[in-house]
């Protein structure tokens, strides 16, 4: 494991580079195929609405993967992520309007742990609403 960020160079409050990700229907289709999650609410508007959703929604796991990239891009080594957890508080609604949804991500070092590990606290919003809570990664730094 070879993270490029040194534990001694970060403090509680250190901000990671923020990022934003566009999500369109095609991304949901690709993710369904790659992950094997073919739940119809991620590709069929009629069924999504019939079960009370506003429209097709993104796979929570796609959101989680994209948000986590802020951490792996920061450390330079995806294997530095020892723990990663989120709560999905609101669905990311992906309309078929040519634009889809945007997910905005910020991340901050929330705690310095032993063994040169840190806890990174993440936020993710879409259409102005928080879509994740308790989004945290424990990361091994150099």
């Amino acid at each position, binding site marked *: *494991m*070879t993270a490029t960020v040194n534990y001694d160079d970060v403090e509680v409050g250190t901000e990671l580079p923020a990022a934003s*990700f566009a999500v369109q229907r095609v*991304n949901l289709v*690709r*993710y369904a*195929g*790659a*992950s*094997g*999650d073919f*739940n*119809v*609410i991620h590709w069929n508007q009629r*069924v999504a609405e*019939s*079960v*009370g*959703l506003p429209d097709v*929604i993104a*796979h*929570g*796991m*796609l959101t*989680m*993967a*994209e948000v*986590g*990239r802020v951490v*792996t*891009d920061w450390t330079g*080594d*995806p*294997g530095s*992520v*020892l*723990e*990663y*957890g*989120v*709560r*999905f*508080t*609101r*669905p990311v609604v992906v309309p078929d309007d040519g634009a889809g949804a945007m997910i905005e991500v910020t991340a901050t070092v929330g705690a310095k742990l032993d063994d040169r590990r840190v806890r990174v606290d993440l936020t993710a919003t879409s259409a102005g609403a928080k879509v994740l809570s*308790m989004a945290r*990664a424990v990361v091994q730094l150099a």
Partner: protein
Amino acid sequence: MALDQSYIGRTYAPSEPYEVGREKIREFADAIGDDNPAYRDPDAAKALGYDDVIAPPTFAIVLSARVATQVIHDPEFGLDYSRVVHGEQRFVHRRPVRAGDRLIGVLTVDNIRAAAGNDIVSTRVELSTEAGEPVATAYSTLVARAPAGTPAPQSTP
């Protein structure tokens, strides 16, 4: 509809091994839009100290969700999958999943509860190699939302 609480604590027999392939990792990385070379190029992965390309941290869901179908799609359990949304997810990695791994998953139903008309199921899948080396644990909470006629919750508990 309340789910059968007797499933709480149930641990299932180990799954058949899943062989992690380089191209599957690449396909998954493409799908999440992540161009990290460690997911594609064995030399880039070796430069980080790994024997072969590694998988993104959330790739373990491909295996754990498959293993969890034993309860999620169990007709006797009665979960309506079209009403299911993901409530929570957490991974603990002892090391990254990598190409060439042959991984076995052991599913345990940690909890089943009802809240505001929703059925909430928490599972745990322990992933290890055929040789018994622990690799990762995936903790999932799925929420089967209340049937139509009740207001759609804005957030899952």
